[in-house]
């Protein structure tokens, strides 16, 4: 099977409000940086996949059509893949299939969200069924809090453990020039912060951001000609789970486990804790990062609190998670999954600058969306196998 590599990445300066650019300008900024990173121009790109969050977030329907002019994509194939918060990874997966399926050689994936332009939690609330659910739904926080509460009892995901995730990721963000939240916090401050929907408190929650990310993919043969530092995609999958059925416990994410098993098999990963040098996960709230530790097999079920407390997932630990700062540093929802992929690619090619994990060769990526029912996993490496 054809190997695919990431040959260029780019990100905007993320911020709470990018008043200086439109949505199209925001996407263009990331694309210009990715093209420069790869040493390519739009003339070298066969196809464009736009991935962005739910269209209501930015109040423009099918926004990829507006982006065409700013991206210089006229007369190219342009398609938008959208899959909730994990859409960036879903878009990258579509791009990989275009190359492997023989309809394109080089594909540009651009993911973005300009959350300052829409009513975020109101838009999210429309996710729920209009007949059964919407009348008592409040954004995405309510059920996330309920599931965390259940995991507290059954898996020991304490408020203190989650606070340590906030402390770690906000600390890491200090070194990331693209992160826009630069403020360290302590466990005590997180625990004392205002409850929004207990046990979720203000400092458990990432910022709301404007931002974009772009990634260029190419096939083996072509990729080495483009760059001396391709980041090889060793596996990628994006799985779903239907409906919030009452028989599902949600203690562990089933689609995450299915996706991880498939990707680990493709990448030859049998001991994730030992084999991965670095992980980038999409943590919409701190409690989710704890859950992902277990779902991704970085620790046994019920072991997440011990893992974070041990310091293993710190930048200096044996399995650093989110050296970029994760969503705590910047959270343009539609772009965050592709940012995780780009950050992992930067790590395994030695391009992560001040937050580089020395000698990182194999990186783990996790992303997801919907009502925690869409889950994607990818593995990137400095070598093809």
């Amino acid at each position, binding site marked *: 099977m054809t190997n695919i590599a990431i040959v260029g990445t780019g990100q905007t300066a993320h911020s709470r409000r990018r008043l200086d650019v439109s949505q199209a300008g925001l996407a263009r900024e990331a694309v210009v940086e990715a093209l420069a990173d790869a040493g390519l121009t739009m003339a070298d790109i066969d196809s464009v996949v736009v991935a962005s969050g739910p269209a209501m977030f930015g109040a423009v329907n*099918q926004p990829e059509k507006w982006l065409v002019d700013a991206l210089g994509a006229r007369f190219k194939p342009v398609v938008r893949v959208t899959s909730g918060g994990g859409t960036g990874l879903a878009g990258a997966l579509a791009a990989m299939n275009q190359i*492997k399926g023989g309809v394109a050689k080089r594909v540009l994936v651009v993911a973005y969200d300009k959350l300052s332009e829409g009513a975020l939690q109101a838009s999210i609330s429309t996710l729920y069924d209009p007949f059964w659910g919407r009348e008592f739904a409040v954004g995405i926080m309510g059920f996330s809090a309920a599931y965390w509460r259940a995991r507290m009892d059954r898996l020991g995901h304490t408020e203190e453990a989650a606070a340590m995730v906030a402390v770690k990721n906000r600390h890491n963000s200090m070194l990331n020039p693209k992160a826009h939240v630069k403020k360290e916090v302590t466990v005590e401050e997180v625990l004392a912060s205002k409850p929004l929907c207990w046990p979720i408190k203000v400092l458990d929650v990432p910022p709301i951001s404007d931002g974009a990310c772009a990634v260029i993919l190419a096939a083996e043969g072509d990729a080495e000609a483009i760059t001396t530092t391709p980041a090889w995609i060793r596996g990628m999958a994006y799985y779903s789970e239907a409906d919030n059925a009452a028989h599902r416990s949600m203690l562990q994410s089933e689609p995450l486990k299915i996706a991880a098993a498939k990707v680990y098999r493709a990448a030859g990963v049998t001991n994730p804790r030992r084999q991965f040098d670095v992980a980038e996960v999409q943590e919409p709230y701190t409690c989710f990062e704890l859950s992902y530790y277990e779902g991704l097999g970085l620790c046994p079920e019920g072991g997440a609190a011990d893992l974070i407390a041990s310091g293993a997932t710190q930048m200096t630990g044996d399995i650093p998670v989110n050296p970029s700062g994760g969503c705590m540093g910047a959270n343009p929802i539609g772009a965050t999954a592709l940012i995780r992929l780009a950050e992992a690619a930067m790590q395994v090619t030695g391009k992560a600058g001040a937050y580089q994990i020395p000698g990182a060769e194999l990186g783990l990526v996790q992303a997801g969306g919907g009502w925690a029912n869409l889950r994607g996993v990818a593995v990137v490496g400095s070598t093809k196998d």
Partner: protein
Amino acid sequence: MVAATSRNVAVVGSAQTQLKSAWSDRQHVDLISEAVARALLGTGLRIEDVDFVIDSGSDFLDGRSISNCGFLGAMGAHHKEESRVEEDGLWSALYGATKIASGSASVGLIVAYSKSSESDPDNYWTSLAEPFTQRPVGLDQNSVAGLFAQRYLTRFGVPASALRAVTQKAWAAADGNTFVDATLEMLEDEYWSQEIASPLRRSDMARPVDGAVAVLLASKDVARQIGGSPVWVTGMGSAIDQHFIAARDGATLPAAAAAAAAAYRMAGASGASDFDIVEVSAGSTAGELMVLEALGLAEPGKAIELYADGASPGLNPSGGALPADVVMASGLVRLHEVAAQLGGRSDHAPQGARRGLAHASGGLGMQNHCVITLETS
């Protein structure tokens, strides 16, 4: 070298609900599950055999963010790979075909639906316009279609009255298609006279309808195991024009031509004349003429000649999108139609047809185009 999609992927099953202006007694999930269940019939495949689902629908039309999440069960996507392509379903089919051609999967289910009766389709179209310079001046699908039609008719000296033949052919074909709730009796005087955007009248515009369609794609190996007469995907292409209306030609559709050229190249086809069936989606009668010219079925300004009595039995045998525009699914309905007609599963197939072409468009003024070509062995 990467895998070639051509003739490695087959349509092994497909089905649609009836398309009608309002399915008021059925929910989205009812329409979707009917199409999915019927697409599997006769293939010997069960939903458990489906590796992945790619689907098309619109959050704006559904009034629901990440609306695919609400329909995963109906689509049979539970614990499968799933993604939403928020374009016409023909782009989902293109994605699905690449996934199978890549060797990543063997069986894929492509689903598209719209239920515009529960929404305001005009708002769907208006919200497509870039919000700073185009939306405030009131550009919508009607005004853009009118501007482009005016330019087309003027440039090529085609009288607006000639467009009547396009409507008549489309609705007569739809009248004979049991899966479209359209009758010639619906075309009353008011339908012909109500001005929408000069020179276009109500009868020139695509009619939004409710419905769902499902297409089952499979690898060569699975298609051979199923037996029968698989319908092979031979070519695929898509291309988009610029968004800003002023930057576009208006009287021609170069993006449709680019999409067709890519599909013909992959299929090894010399041009549109290679195809016995051509099913296209257009937003208006004048738009349909421009699509046919971009595909190469007629010289610029000459497509109206295809509508002379009995001239083109292979052109939109289903009636096309004008009598029944399923908004996010019209192109995938075209693919289903071509596959069913080539595969002997349709009662309105032209005789002896072996090769067919399905076309989809999207965006204001048909900014985006997709073409997939099919062939029976």
